[in-house]
């Protein structure tokens, strides 16, 4: 990220905005929404391939933030991480017509190693993640995408690709190792 030298970043952190949301400050919710709506919408749309459903999940998620902002705190990890995980779980639950899986995971702590609070940081990471996925061997990328964007279990991926279960697990592990190496 290119940052002007000598000028401190005066943007409010996610946690500071959330704290304002607990006091029912609509401008703070608006700022949080603007920060993450693109990432959430794109993620859900990719999973469901349905514009209407993606809009619905995006709206519901931020309505939940508005209503339950007081339940968030820094001990639960990153807000950006939470919002991405929660959006995915809701989308996968809808895709697989399950009612409870998403809700279960939404209480989990999510430690995101990257900062996504500015659009510049987001675009840099988008490029980075795409470059990593683009550089993975086909089988590894397919296994990762089947799991993440299609909500398939390793057994289902093995059935779909005709590969042994052990191979699928190895591919996912190797792909995750590459991803983590780049992120670190």
């Amino acid at each position, binding site marked *: 990220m*290119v*940052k*002007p030298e000598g000028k401190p970043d005066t943007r409010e952190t996610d946690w500071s905005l959330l704290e304002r949301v607990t006091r029912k400050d609509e*401008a703070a*919710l608006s*700022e949080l929404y*603007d920060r993450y*709506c*693109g*990432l*959430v*919408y*794109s*993620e859900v*749309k*990719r999973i469901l391939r349905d514009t209407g459903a*993606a*809009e619905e999940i995006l*709206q519901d998620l931020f*309505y939940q933030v*508005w209503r339950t902002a007081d339940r968030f705190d820094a001990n639960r*990890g*990153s807000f950006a*991480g939470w919002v*991405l*995980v929660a*959006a995915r779980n809701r989308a*996968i639950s809808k895709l697989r017509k399950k009612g409870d899986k998403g809700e*279960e995971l939404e209480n*989990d*702590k*999510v*430690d*995101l*190693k*990257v900062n996504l609070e*500015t*659009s*510049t940081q987001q675009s840099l*990471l*988008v*490029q*980075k*993640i*795409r*470059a990593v*996925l*683009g*550089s993975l061997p086909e089988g590894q*990328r397919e296994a*990762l*995408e089947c799991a*993440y*964007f299609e909500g398939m*279990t*390793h057994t289902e991926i093995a059935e779909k690709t005709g590969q042994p279960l052990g191979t699928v*697990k190895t591919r*996912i592990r190797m792909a*995750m190792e590459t*991803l983590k190496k780049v992120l670190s």
Partner: protein
Amino acid sequence: MNESSHISGEKLELYALGALPETEASAVKAHAAGCAECAAKLAEALGDVAVLALAAEQEAPPARVKEKLFVRIAAERTTGGQRKIVGEPKRPRPIWWNWVLVPATAVLAIFCVGLYRENRTLTGELQEARRMAASFERERLHVMGLVNALSAKDTETIRLASTKDGFPGSGALVRYNKRLGKVIYSADLPELPPGRVYQMWLVPTSGEAPISAGTFTPDGSKTWDAQVPANSEAKAFAVTVEPQGGVPKATGKIILLGGG
């Protein structure tokens, strides 16, 4: 499972990806709930997996989603303040009281609606101003990044020329700063049919797969820029024709090529 037999990192990642069957996922969740070490590793795994969301084609949602969200919130505020007092005995109200109460309530309601509308207008204007300020700031940072890259001494200039599969006379100029991972380019290429775009690629010297440096559609004197992983050693830059939105791996023939 107990604390002496922690869950493997591989299993935690499969759980975070949602790739474990339900019985195994429940066992992982139950163990992590009682084991601080595995819970911390699970939080990390969830974070590592969450960034995969950014692999999706990025698109802004329609403005109506935000409008609906705030209408929903406003509706909640309007109805949320109403409270019923139960158990209080009703006392008969004198009839003359209605002659005062009804017009007063009507006037008050009109006044409240006016205030509410004004508040909505002002809030909307404030939000718009914040959005514009944020947009200007993003643009400023973006332009500064380009200026820094273009003025850096270690920025290379690479000319791309048409290949036998390309368009005769076409070409592109790429400025590449390896240290910053910044690629800035302009191109002289003909228009493509609908649904097709040009895609720029950095071909690494390592022999690994080309790295995408974005898609583009020629439009007068426009320049494009892209971020690739910093310190990517470039053997060459190439342009292919791909479906709208671009592809993670080049599928089209190389129409422009240039570089070391």
